């Protein structure tokens, strides 16, 4: 339209003198409905992150994860022994002042193996989860946005995958492809894809009903642009929560696969593999060889779930 817009002809006083950003203005008086309104207003804003930084569970979870990351990178510098050194005269030693966590069947220091055993798990799980999240997000967005026949077919396939136990599927893939770090990442990533897709689809379906999606169609935006530019930012919080939750499961899945012998090749220290190598010792009462790696896995899983939990609570509060 060529006609110039006229400047306001009406001394409109509707604008506030103070910045419009105050919460009070968006919610009016903080009445019965205000509690939810405040939450909605603060969601997805920096305020949400400040809230996260006030949550004790987040600090505990983040602290533990950070500890294991430090161990993974610098563990070999401060571990009391080399994780590979075998002391054949001192096998299956119970915890003592010299070996806090005792030694294993080959006389290796369990503490040193636990400290350095986090490395592979901390590389493989995030990469696998990121891969699964990216693929799942793309699939879920497309299912939620296009709906119809595509959703129907993709949905059935996703459900078929969900019906099978994760470890069994992974097991099949690894047997077929041969174990390697890359295979582990790809396999766990693919196994998680349908799970994440399902969550993203549900969130995208809700967003698709919103008028802003119709509006963007009226602005001539392509489906890809609507999905990635309009819908994705709004389902990001759901994806973030799903990612952290899946990260916890991924640690468990990777550890399980190593336990079954499809993970990291010996003698590299690895929690799952160490449990697998030593659990037979439980029968002889060598509990420390199994307990400490198991506790290490548990601590990492719990820490990640604590983080997921606090993120979810902040986003939902």
């Amino acid at each position, binding site marked *: 339209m060529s006609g110039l817009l006229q400047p306001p002809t*009406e001394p409109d006083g509707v604008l506030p003198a103070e910045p419009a950003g105050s919460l009070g203005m968006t919610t009016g008086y903080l009445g019965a409905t205000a509690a939810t309104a405040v939450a909605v207003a603060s969601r997805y804003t920096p305020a949400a992150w400040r809230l996260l930084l006030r949550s004790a569970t987040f600090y505990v979870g983040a602290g533990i994860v950070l500890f294991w990351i430090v161990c993974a990178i610098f563990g070999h510098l401060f571990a009391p022994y080399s994780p590979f050194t075998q002391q054949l005269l001192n096998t299956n030693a119970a915890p003592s002042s010299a070996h806090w966590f005792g030694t294993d069947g080959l006389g290796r220091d369990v503490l040193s193996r636990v400290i350095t055993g986090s490395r592979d798990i901390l590389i493989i799980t995030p990469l696998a989860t990121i891969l699964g999240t990216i693929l799942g997000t793309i699939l879920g967005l497309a299912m939620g946005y296009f709906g119809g026949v595509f959703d129907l077919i993709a949905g059935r396939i996703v459900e078929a995958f969900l019906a099978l136990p994760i470890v069994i599927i992974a097991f099949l893939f690894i047997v077929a492809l041969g174990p390697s770090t890359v295979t582990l990442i790809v396999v766990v990533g693919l196994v998680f894809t349908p799970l994440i897709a399902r969550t993203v689809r549900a969130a995208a379906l809700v967003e698709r009903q919103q008028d802003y999606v119709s*509006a963007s169609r009226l602005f001539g935006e392509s489906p890809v642009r609507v999905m990635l530019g309009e819908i994705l930012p709004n389902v990001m919080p759901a994806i973030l929560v799903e990612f952290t939750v899946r990260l916890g499961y991924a640690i468990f899945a990777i550890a399980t696969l190593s336990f079954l012998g499809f993970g990291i090749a010996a003698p590299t220290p690895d929690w799952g593999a160490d449990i697998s190598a030593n659990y037979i010792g439980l029968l002889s009462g060598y509990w420390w060889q199994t307990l400490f790696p198991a506790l290490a896995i548990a601590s990492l899983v719990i820490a990640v779930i604590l983080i997921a939990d606090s993120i979810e609570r902040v986003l939902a509060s």
Partner: protein
Amino acid sequence: MTADSTPSSPPPSAPPSSPADPAAALSVTNLDVTYKVRGQDRLALRDVTFSIARGESYGLVGESGSGKSTVALALVRYLPSNGRVSGGKVSINGLDPLSMGRGALRDLRARTVSMVYQEPGRALNPSIRVGKQIAEVFGIAGQHKDQATASAEEMLRKVQISDPARVMRRYPHELSGGMAQRAVIAMALARSPSLLILDEPTTALDATVEAEVLDLVAALRQEFTTTVLFISHNLAVIAKMCDRVGVLYAGQLLEQGPARAVFENPRHPYTVGLLRCIPRRGQRKDSDRLDTIPGFLPTPGSSMTGCIFAPRCALVQDRCRTTDPPFFLVDATRTSRCFFHEQAPDLPRATPAAIPELAEHETDGADGSLVVMERLSKTFDGNVRALAGVDLVIERGETLGLVGESGSGKTTLARVLLGLTKPDAGSAVTLHGKPLSPDARRRPREVLRSLQIVFQNPDSALNRRKSVRALIGRPLAELAGLSGQALQDRLEELITSVRLEDRHLPLRPSQLSGGLKQRVAIARAFGPGPEVVVCDEPTSALDVSVQAAILNLLADLQQTERATYLFISHDLGLVRYLSDRIVVLYLGRVMEVGPAETVFAGPHHPYTEALFSAVPSLDGERPDRIKLTGEIPSAANPPSGCVFHTRCPRKLTTGECESTEPPLHEDEPGHQIRCHIPLAELRELQRSQSVPSQGGSQ
């Protein structure tokens, strides 16, 4: 006002109903309520004092954020956990709910006070049959099971449900909104409460259903002699339902008195301003602009000295800013919390009434049909006919008002026009005589930029993750092909014309008030330079004072941008103010179409007539002429013949209405009515007599 300022009551002249009035069913004295938000106490109600005599109906009216619901919640101690009564007294039938123990409080809630909320669906337990839920109330009152069931059925009959036995067996989701609200009212009255609190009971209902429920409440009030506290944002509803009214603003009562007197001759600047925001007495966009109330509600909990309305008041003097005004006695029955209540009726306008002068436009190619819709049909899920052969023309430069209850097909029509919903085969939409693709994705850019929309709910229409700049800028880049400085200039131009400011540009929608959000949505729609803008209930989510500013803005933009509007609304007052022509839809069919003034003058289609009668008016100019009963039938199974015959109070006895669908008859040029009754006869009927309402509803 701060808590330690001079006590404002008893003021120089005490309110007429003194707090200690023993005859009062409810008395509230100096009530303060605070909410704790992020560790800070915020005063939500300050010094609220009113009382309701036994059998009286008292209305609390206020915009959102005024604290009206907080009053209702505080009375029965239902405040959320972060809220508390921080001062004042409440007395219900001489009992003090604020100090009583748990047992007594439960007893009070069970026997003395009943509440009805806006959403009937939430008040009913979805997993228990309606009959059992109502019978439960009688059971608590001590009745035996069979007796309670019988009482419940009797109660449903009293709320004019014609087949109570059947409704008793239903689950709440199987009832329509109006029916569910009746059931809730039946439950509320089952306790024969001495105080009935109605919090926006009809806001979620359609106009004709609202009228029915309001009539029902009025009739039941007579029968049960219940004291009613009626809370609403809708001034006309309060005017219709209440004996006395209190105007609440930012947690403070500003004016009180008999409803009629307050609305006809308001004596507080806020009430005056509020009433001027509503188009009345046939006001139209060509005659004058609506007045607005400048400014915003004060930030909740901000401690301020002086009158709480002072920052927005045109009569403000130094005294208002320093001293909290007490209640002044306007006459024996009325009070106003304003030093200058005598000048209040002469409040200067905040917005000039004059219509902005415009340079004469070169008329390119005269008027004429811009959009032509032919045989527009849309069937959902194979059998739900949302639109059934609609023929409609939108003239260049006009505002076409689209009226109808929910389910009439208004929004579907708009979505088909925009290409968001694919119509059935055989439907045709043309723009400038060129046929349009039914799918927006297949329409060329020029067509997309010609047809834009302002949605009802800006929260849904604006992507909450984007800044105002991105929201308005996107369509400029996509459709108008602007970039760089040109885009920046156009952006500036747009936000100026919708009266936003530069500092709003980086903000997200959640940081804006409802009115500002809708301005962003309007700027976005006008950005690409559209020829037709669909306005789908653009103000129904907004407060009255904000609505006026938005309507003015739309009227101004229509002049400056020379846009054509398809204006969808259920509010006939708004449609009358803004529209040049009006279309009345019912079950996806055009019932009446014509120039706005002709449609309002009559003869009307009986449905249009019923819509006019249903809407409560502040002017009292429309007598209740005809009433509809029941609700709009399902579009999956429309009635035979004339689809309106199941509810039509003027249905012919010849059986013609049931058997054949009437054609559109032309009255004056351009005014058409789809009815078997000859138009001359219809005119005569509507001039003379009123049709009694049909019996029980279903």
